[in-house]
């Protein structure tokens, strides 16, 4: 497998051009284009059924395209021209094969030798805290620990009685057996799948809903890994419905709605284009009349703390001036850009219209 090392001149880039797909007469992806000229995180967002997964499948060469092209460093993107890691939205594992066998299989398919695969399994198992599901000895340790903890007794003062649990009791030690993959929780299966995606140390990482179904602790673990990958100069395409996560990581986005791209580009620029329209204002008296006079839209109000929607800096400044001129004491005046959530909802709404 070709190992695409990142070049310092940034020549390596991912270009998706005029991607098009239809099933029968129904167009499911209509002329989608975007580019990742440098490492970072690109978000592919959209409503359910907008064509995100189909687009990802076409980008990765899994699905035939009816039009368009996808290139990596000027060459058609496939697993021969690029080291790809993919975490699919609907995750799964072979239900009866051992996890080690499965991970090794994927490692071998991606051209990683057995020794390196085993080293990486060890590394990622530790990072993702899934060792006890992969290694029998770790499962045994955990079991022993649980047995040990189960035998701890406490005196009336809450102190542990130590004399009878210094060593495991003879005949009580159970043989540790690894859980079969289909017995793992959804979150743990997801972490194993993420491990599989990382086993070849990919240059292009495609993560479809990477944080869905994870508890806060595991979400933080995975976020940390994603941050590391960004820092390491990897190209990441992320699809998610969790807008705050996308905002946290993504520099560029495409929002799909009904198979078309309704918004596409750099997230900061998209926000800048839409201006600063969210005004959070806290005062010490009722200012409804001033808001009405300035033509500002009132979103909500609670104990003289107002959430307002302005058309831009000019309208916000006009309101601010009128308040100052009226001698109203201002506790907080915070004018901010649209959130990604708002951009998404607006874009989809406009798309409906």
């Amino acid at each position, binding site marked *: 497998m070709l190992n695409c090392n990142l070049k310092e001149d940034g020549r390596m880039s991912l270009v998706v051009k005029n991607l098009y797909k239809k099933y029968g007469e129904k167009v499911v992806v209509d002329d989608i284009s975007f580019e990742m000229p440098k490492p970072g995180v690109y978000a592919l967002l959209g409503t359910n059924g907008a064509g995100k997964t189909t687009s990802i499948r076409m980008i990765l060469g*899994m*699905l035939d*395209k009816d039009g368009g092209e*996808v290139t990596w460093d000027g060459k058609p993107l496939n697993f021969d021209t690029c080291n790809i890691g*993919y975490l699919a939205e609907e995750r799964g594992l*072979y239900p009866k094969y051992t996890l080690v*066998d499965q991970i090794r299989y994927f490692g071998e398919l991606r051209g990683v030798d057995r020794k390196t695969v085993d080293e990486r399994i060890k590394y990622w198992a530790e990072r993702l805290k899934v060792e006890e599901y992969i290694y029998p000895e770790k499962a045994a340790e955990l079991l022993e620990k649980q047995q040990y903890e189960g035998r701890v007794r406490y005196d009336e003062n809450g102190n542990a009685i130590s004399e009878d649990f210094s060593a495991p009791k003879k005949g009580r030690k159970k043989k540790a057996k690894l859980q079969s993959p289909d017995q793992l929780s959804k979150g743990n299966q997801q972490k194993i799948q993420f491990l599989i995606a990382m086993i070849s140390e990919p240059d292009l990482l495609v993560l479809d809903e990477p944080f869905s179904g994870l508890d806060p602790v595991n979400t933080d673990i995975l976020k940390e890994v994603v941050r590391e990958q960004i820092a390491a100069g990897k190209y990441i395409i992320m699809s998610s419905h969790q807008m705050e996560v996308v905002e946290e990581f993504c520099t560029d986005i495409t929002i799909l709605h009904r198979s078309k791209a309704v918004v596409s580009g750099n997230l900061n620029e998209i926000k800048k284009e839409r201006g600063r329209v969210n005004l959070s204002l806290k005062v010490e008296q009722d200012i409804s009349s001033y808001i009405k006079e300035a033509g500002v839209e009132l979103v909500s109000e609670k104990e003289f703390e107002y959430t307002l929607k302005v058309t831009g800096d000019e309208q916000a400044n006009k309101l601010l001036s009128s308040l100052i001129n009226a001698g109203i004491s201002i506790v907080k005046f915070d004018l901010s850009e649209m959130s990604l959530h708002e951009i998404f909802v607006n874009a989809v709404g406009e798309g409906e219209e």
Partner: protein
Amino acid sequence: MNKRENIYSLEGFSKVFKFTVRQTFKNKGYLLSFVIFVLVMTLMGPLQYLGQSAGQGAAEDSMNFNSAEVDVDNIYIYDQLGVIQSSDNVKDLYESRGKDDDKEAGITSDKINVEEATDASEDSIISGLKKKDVAVVITASETGYKVNGIIADDSDVEIDDLDGITEVIKDDFDTKRFEDNDVKAEDAQMIFSGVNTDGVTSETEYLSKESKAISGQKYMFYMLGFSMIVFIVVSMSTSYIITSVTEEKQSKLVESLLVSVRPMALLLGKVCGMMSYVVLLLICGVIGSNVSGYVMENVFNITEEKFSNSGFNFSIFKDFGVVGGVALVLSVILAFLAFGMISGLFGSTCNKTEDMQNATGNVMTISMISYFAAVAAGGMDNDIVNKLIALIPPFSYFAAPVTYVTGRISAPILIISYVIQIALIVGIVVISAKSYRNLLLSDSTTQKLKTIFKSAKG
């Protein structure tokens, strides 16, 4: 789709193949099946032989009359027709024993008394018999003659022994009667059977005349055996391949796989991995079958001829020499590839367990029809049918090599048959290459062939 991408690429095939083989042999169920099948194949011949021998033995025991084991003191023969005049004419009663044998048990010549023909009634004869005496009375009747065996009311003689003695005397009486009238044994046989055997051609003569090395019965026997092997191979693999493909599709693992391996490599690796399991099983079974044959012959003195005649066993592959064996093995492999690929395609249309049952049913139906067609053709042993069954797939996968090794078709026809079989496999491969990936990613639950062809078109 990127037009430069080679959809027929087999990159990654060996890795999928190795993984499939490893996991198959790691699976306890498959390991157990392997051991059981090899044992069954190994012991099939001996078990059939023993079963048949036991049945035959019991039947023969009831038919055979052993004069050495009969406990009688005297046999009185009353022949009113005067054919049997001395004990020399009923030699079959004591043929296995010396005339002067003085052992108490068994029939010796001195125990046989040919009485002068009298009109004595059976009642008077019975009254004169002792406990270990037997009388056989031959009297004239409207249809010719009749032979009756008689014992005393309180006789110790077994009824089976009485029947045996009576039957032997009747046969000897017939023989002597024909001799006395200068009738040959063959003519007598014709009179009783109603068949004139003068114009009958022996099996060897017939086969030589028809340029056939193997009889119709053996042909059917080999056809039955070989098509059974192909059927077993296909049934064992169909379910596995469909389950395996569906499992990857259902679990969405296939999405991760398709960014690492070409679809054709994925399918063929799986099919060939499973094939190696089945072929290894067959090889072990055939070796086992031959070993058991060797042991039967060299340890128990049961010759291969007797052994083979008792029923089908898996030593069939060595009955036809190297070329025949290669033809048979090649056909098994081709059948496996064809049905394996079809199974993979049907598997890729499945989304649920019910779909898998339907898909397995479809493939099994095709293989079952082919199996029965091959068996029927073996029974018919007709020149045209033999050629057709050898040439038309999917029947040819089950029948072609047997028609060749038994001399029903020539080598060129076999080669044409293989070309057609391989062409069909190539056709399936082309359709698979075009449709397998799309079917794997499709949520459609329709398993009609039309879905596959539609998907192949894109």
